[in-house]
């Protein structure tokens, strides 16, 4: 398969970024939007062509999808250990190319309408392109180090985009928070990469993931604290993934990141960057599965399940619609993680892996749609809060329909996309791990409930007093909504298990009717409850909130995670750890330097009288010196 053109896919957005970034004062906003969209369109067409070529023409050999790699050595350390730069084509990377391209293209188109009249219009498109470039690079990475490089690039683009409204203090704080929290997680990631490199002697995914390779066969060679070092490496790498994918306890940045413009949330915090953690685990899946009999994979499953439940509970009580969507994203990411965690490897056993990737795919579509729909609503009513919305279905028919489709998809109603992928996840959990399955089903119900809570809250319920009549957004914004809605409807019918599986060979996935029925009925219960609570104006919701009392307060304050972090950092780290170190630095290290400096100054004060500017004194010194030298020469040298 000829993959030489694939390098163009990340390079086009990079070129767009450079163009818009360098000439951002010279290019008119009207042009820069088109430049951004056209660049992305080219990338998207290439991505779709690559997917077509890979999945339907050249990818399969003897029923197994091949891995194509094109790389050059970038840094050499030893014979086996070197950092390459290149592209790796296999089912998940091609699938991710499609996801990133489609969502990014839609977000670019949408941004042309949403950001109209903004001062930094061109800058915004430059940042979007930079982000897209980084994400492509991350997806195509051939080894751990390359993925790490692009991982950080994604982080910095996300920082730029979250902090886009840099005049708002809250946006700046959110950008910093996102950057710092993920940086903490990335520290673990980096240590994990170094451990991997040291003990396996390679960074290459192919070598690491080969089930017959030395990395997987020799995992027991060195152990540390009762676990294999390779397991430690995997766990540390997973910490990095958990940071980007907002798993507990690194989730605190995601809700705050909603301070950025809505298209950014749709692109980064729904479809692309936050799934980087899932993608990373999927990339290293054979290692997670085989090393130490999947110890690290169990951790992944539990973290995913707990995060999923936790986020779903919090989402019920949030009043800012974007924050509800943020917690919903976290919950769905938890789903993907737990699906990976309960997955096997061969054939149908690998259903969890397949389901995770499938859910990643469908979730990207409908969650981006939800975010863009929310953006459309915010655009119309100029507020993020549920209390300022209601009865919008009359004014915004297209947004209403597309939002409803996305909400049905995420609630897992057939025949929408979310139903198929969520069902596969629940099947995988049911086959491997009952407890996680129950959590998953419960979360499915919660998901339906909170999605329809905001849906009814926005589009139904009592009409609020609007300053000026909300109207439907322009076509540039509704067109992406319609495209994504279409994808959310038909996305589930893609026979995903034929294309993306753990062992790359494909299998037949069947709908498991009893489990599907359970999931759907739970979802329906959630929707009906939401209907009862929020369809009409009533005080049921308030009553229930009162009934739950302290628990309600806890959830609406997000279980005080932020406060705990602040307490730990401010009271313990700053006071107990940093303050003594700072004192040592100030007093001892700086003190030493200051003493040296002060002594120098004092000495110079004392001896500066020598430089009097009196030529006569100089002459005297000169002559005196000469005379003394002469005497020395005459009486000591000549004997």
């Amino acid at each position: 398969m000829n993959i030489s053109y694939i390098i163009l896919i990340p390079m086009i957005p990079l070129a767009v970024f450079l163009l818009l970034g360098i000439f951002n004062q010279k290019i008119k906003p009207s042009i820069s939007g088109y430049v951004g969209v056209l660049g992305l369109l080219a990338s998207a067409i290439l991505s779709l062509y690559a997917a077509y070529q890979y999945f339907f023409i050249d990818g399969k050999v003897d029923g197994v999808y091949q891995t194509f790699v094109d790389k050059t050595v970038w840094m050499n350390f030893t014979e086996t250990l070197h950092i390459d730069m290149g592209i790796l084509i296999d089912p998940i990377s091609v699938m991710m190319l499609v996801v990133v391209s489609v969502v990014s293209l839609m977000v670019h188109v949408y941004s042309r309408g949403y950001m109209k009249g903004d001062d930094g219009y061109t800058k915004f498109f430059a940042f979007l392109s930079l982000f897209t470039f980084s994400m492509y690079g991350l997806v195509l990475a051939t080894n751990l180090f390359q993925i790490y490089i692009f991982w950080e690039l994604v982080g910095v683009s996300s920082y730029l985009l979250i902090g886009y409204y840099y005049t708002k203090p809250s946006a700046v704080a959110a950008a910093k928070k996102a950057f710092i929290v993920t940086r903490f997680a990335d520290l673990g990631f980096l240590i994990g990469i170094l451990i991997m490199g040291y003990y396996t002697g390679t960074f290459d995914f192919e070598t690491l993931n080969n089930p017959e390779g030395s990395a997987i066969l020799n995992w027991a060679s060195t152990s540390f604290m009762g676990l294999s070092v390779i397991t430690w490496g995997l766990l540390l790498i997973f910490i990095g993934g958990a940071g980007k994918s907002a798993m507990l306890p690194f989730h605190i940045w995601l809700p705050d990141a909603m301070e950025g413009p809505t298209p950014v949330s749709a692109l980064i915090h729904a479809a692309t960057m936050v799934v980087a953690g899932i993608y990373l685990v999927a990339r290293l899946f054979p290692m997670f599965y085989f090393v130490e009999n999947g110890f690290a994979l169990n951790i992944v499953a539990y973290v995913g399940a707990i995060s999923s439940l936790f986020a779903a509970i919090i989402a019920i009580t949030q009043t800012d619609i974007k924050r509800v969507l943020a917690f919903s994203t976290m919950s769905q990411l938890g789903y993907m993680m737990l699906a990976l965690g309960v997955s096997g490897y061969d054939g149908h056993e690998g259903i969890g892996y397949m389901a995770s990737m499938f859910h990643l795919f469908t979730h990207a579509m409908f969650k981006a749609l939800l975010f863009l729909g929310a953006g459309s609503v915010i655009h119309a009513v100029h507020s993020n809060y549920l209390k300022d919305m209601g009865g919008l279905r009359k004014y915004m028919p297209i947004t209403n329909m597309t939002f409803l489709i996305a909400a049905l998809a995420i609630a897992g109603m057939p025949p929408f996309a979310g139903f198929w992928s969520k069902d596969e996840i629940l099947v995988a959990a049911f086959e491997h791990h009952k407890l996680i399955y129950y959590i998953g089903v419960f979360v499915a119900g919660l998901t339906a409930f909170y999605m329809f809570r905001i849906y009814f809250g926005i589009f139904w319920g009592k009409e609020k007093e609007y300053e000026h009549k909300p109207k439907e957004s322009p076509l540039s914004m509704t067109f992406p909504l319609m495209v994504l809605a279409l994808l959310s409807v038909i996305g589930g019918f893609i026979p995903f298990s034929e294309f993306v599986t753990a062992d790359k060979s494909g299998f037949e996935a069947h709908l498991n009717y009893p489990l599907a029925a359970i999931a759907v009925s739970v979802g329906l219960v959630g929707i009906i409850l939401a209907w009862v609570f929020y369809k009409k104006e009533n005080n049921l919701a308030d009553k229930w909130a009162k009934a739950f009392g302290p628990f309600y307060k806890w959830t609406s304050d997000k279980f005080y995670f932020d406060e705990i972090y602040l307490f730990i950092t401010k009271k313990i780290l700053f006071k107990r750890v940093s303050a003594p170190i700072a004192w040592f630095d100030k007093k001892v290290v700086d003190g030493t330097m200051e003493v040296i400096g002060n002594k120098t100054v004092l000495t110079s004060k004392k001896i500066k009288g020598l430089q009097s500017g009196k030529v006569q004194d100089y002459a005297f010194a000169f002559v005196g010196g000469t005379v003394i030298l002469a005497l020395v020469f005459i009486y000591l040298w000549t004997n």
Partner: protein
Amino acid sequence: MIEGISIYEILTLTTILFFIGVYGFITRKNLISILISVELILNASVVNFVVINKYLYPDILQGVFVSIFIIAVAAAETALAVSIIINLYRQINSVEVKDTEVMKY
């Protein structure tokens, strides 16, 4: 060559003259006196050139030429120094060294 006087006497004379000049340069408080002292130093060295030329290499004239050259340079230099001193006097109404300590730290 002067009959009955060896090179040592004359060199002694010029050495004394030279050091009188140096002493004056170092100790005088008046710029004109310092200038005169510089002249003394130069003249001592001129005499040295001539004498050494005469006593050691009687058949060439290089020392003499150098001495004439030095006299010319000294004249120019004196003219310069005097003009500087006059300008200084116009500025600060004094030709004393202690009043010219503007370059101090």
